[in-house]
């Protein structure tokens, strides 16, 4: 009986859950489609208005342009050039990309250890030369700290039993790191940052 029950109850659960997931997924997709459509419609309307009204009423034109500009400002893409530049520096000083691209499952710990020294020494050089780092909290880790009211949640993250009001008392588990200064190399115009390391040919 028990076995049967579980069997009965088990058999439909799988497909049910699957259906549920599918349902949720299709709903999400549908909403996404709707919102996207909505956006598209909105945009087309926005675009149409200025074209039609442009010649007649200038005021309306201004308002619509403002709206269009606002849309991409919510999240912004990070500058890929700076990221590529940092990878190039880590590659030239620390052979970072070489190491990451290499298959290491067959290598011995001794070999990986030797490579790690190159990467550690080189990365340290890059970080020390181009960035100034300082810990966010100066207290000893694993000691009692008090987080006063009005603290910056980007700098201090409360974890665990997060209840009550500031000041919060807790254990500092990680001191945090903050970059106080960046001194990345300046780049020439039209510098191709995509090239992380040039191919080398010895003559």
């Amino acid at each position, binding site marked *: 009986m028990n076995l049967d029950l579980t069997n009965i109850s088990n058999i439909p659960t799988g497909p049910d859950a699957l259906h549920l997931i599918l349902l949720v997924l299709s709903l999400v997709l549908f909403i996404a489609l709707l919102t996207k459509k909505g956006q598209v419609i909105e945009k087309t309307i926005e675009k149409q208005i200025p074209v039609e009204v442009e010649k007649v009423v200038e005021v309306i034109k201004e308002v619509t342009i403002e709206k269009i500009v606002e849309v991409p400002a919510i999240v912004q893409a990070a500058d890929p050039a700076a990221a590529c530049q940092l990878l190039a520096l880590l590659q030239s000083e620390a052979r970072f990309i070489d190491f990451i691209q290499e298959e290491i499952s067959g290598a011995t710990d001794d070999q990986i250890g030797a490579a790690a020294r*190159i990467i550690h020494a080189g990365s340290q050089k890059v970080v020390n030369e181009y960035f100034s780092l300082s810990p966010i909290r100066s207290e000893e880790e694993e000691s009692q700290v008090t987080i006063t009211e009005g603290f910056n949640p980007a700098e201090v993250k409360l974890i665990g039993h997060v209840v009550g009001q500031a000041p919060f008392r807790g254990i500092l588990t990680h001191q945090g790191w903050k970059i106080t200064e960046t001194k990345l190399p300046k780049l*020439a*115009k039209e510098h191709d940052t995509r090239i992380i390391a040039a191919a080398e040919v010895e003559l």
Partner: protein
Amino acid sequence: MSIARYSIGIDLGTTHSVLSYVELADENAEVKLFTMPQLTNFGSVTEKSQLPSFIYQAHDDEIQSQQMPLPWSAENDKLVGSIARNLGLKTPIRLVSSAKSWLSHATVNPHDKILPFSSPDEVAKISPVTATSQYLEHIAAAWDHANPDALIAEQDVTITIPASFDPAARNLTAQAAQSLNLQHFNLLEEPQAAVYNWLQTCGENWRDQVSLGDKILVIDIGGGTTDLSLIAVDEEEGNLSLSRIAVGEHILLGGDNMDLALAYRIKMKLQQDGKALQPWQIQAITHACRDAKEQLLTDNDIDTVPIVIPSRGSKLIGGSTKSELTRTEVAESILAGFFPETDITEMPKQTMRSALTQLGLPYAQDAAITKHIAHFLTKQHEDEGDFIKPTAILLNGGVFKSEAINQRLVSIINSWLSNAGVENNATLLTGTDLDLAVANGASFHGFAKHGKGVRIKGGLASAYYVGIESAMPAIPGFEAPLEAICIAPFGLEEGSNIDIATQEFGLVVGQPVQFKFFGSTIRREDIAGTHLDFWQPDELEQLPDIEVILNADSRNKGEIVPVLLSATVTEVGTLKLEAIPSNGDEVWEIELAVRQ
């Protein structure tokens, strides 16, 4: 002339240059380090406090157009500094290096286009003087870009040189700085600059650390040279004063030699394991050895430091080679090799070199720095067999970051003193910044120049002589004996001039006339005009010949003009020799250093 706002010190080093500056109006102003933008790779400009003394003479196909800009020049076409060093690691035939050492070369004319040395004809060559100019021009352009309202030409600029530089090498350094149009400019010996840095860090308390009659031995070990000087503590109008009383010989031996010694040790070790190394790998090992050496000589808890030589392909794990450097090996190579416990009587070994090796740089043959110091102290003492007993020691250069080297060197010098019956040990003067003392001291020296602090009295570090053949009947098979006439006495101070009225020379119009030229760091009593017809072999050192050409419009070709010689030590700190005819008001400059 405008009034300088800053005093600028430029440590123009064999392997890298540094600029320090201080505001002159404020006596308590801090000496600051200037950061110089420079290309680190094509299209990438970084600010660094050191400008590596390298130039890369690129192949046309290596250059990426528009990818060599500097903040002050979009059309820059020179590769100076970090980028040159980086590119030169893999293509050494196009790398200009050690220009400074070539300035004082005995047989090569530093105006000849010889660098990169012994590279294929196709590589464009420049002269050591041009290379030095390009380093200075880069530094000056960087300064002017950052300080448009206080251009370098109007500042008080001090460029440092080894104390062992001969008058020709000093002139060449000043010539290299000519394109900067500096209005207030002078040269300063590096060991003196280190002493200025010590004075700066001590403040008024320096008088408590030394006393009247003290002799300070300055040992400055740079990347490529070892420079020795003696500074005496005198009294002037009731106050303690300092004067530089002796300088050592030009020793091409420095910290880089130590790193290279360790690198070759690792190379031998790997060869014994059957691993052959490529020349480019030696560079990587040398670099790794420098860091390992510092760790092993400072941290007593570490006994071995692994040395990993990365592969040059993209496979890092399979292709890298690993070895290690132990504390014992470093002690053997560095302490026993460069700072052996020798007696004061042991002099550096000199073997005759074959003619072929003369072409390269004349590196010191004996690596034992302690023997070179013993030689200096012995040579400078007036009595045969005795030596100068320093009462204080000032060490400078990155090598001395290692406590083990410091202690060893000081204890060796103190053992010489106690063996000679001296009661008190020489004290070690501390407080200087080992890497920046020369640049910082040079900029601090600006205060002394303006009378706002102790000034080290220097003047000429050598007495100078011209050689003339004795007027005696020719004996077949014998060269006419040579006489030397002192034309510039030891210690002749900046801004002073001496005419040698006792000796008239006959110069032929339109023909170059050469004189043999000698220097002596130990004949301190000779006055201008002193005739020497005999001297000990090591008393006078022969320098490259000097030459004068009389291109006189008002005279007939072939006419013999009687002239007197005149010696001036310029405000810049260079020696200027002139020929002044007895009849007439022309002046002809005598060119120092004619190399054959």
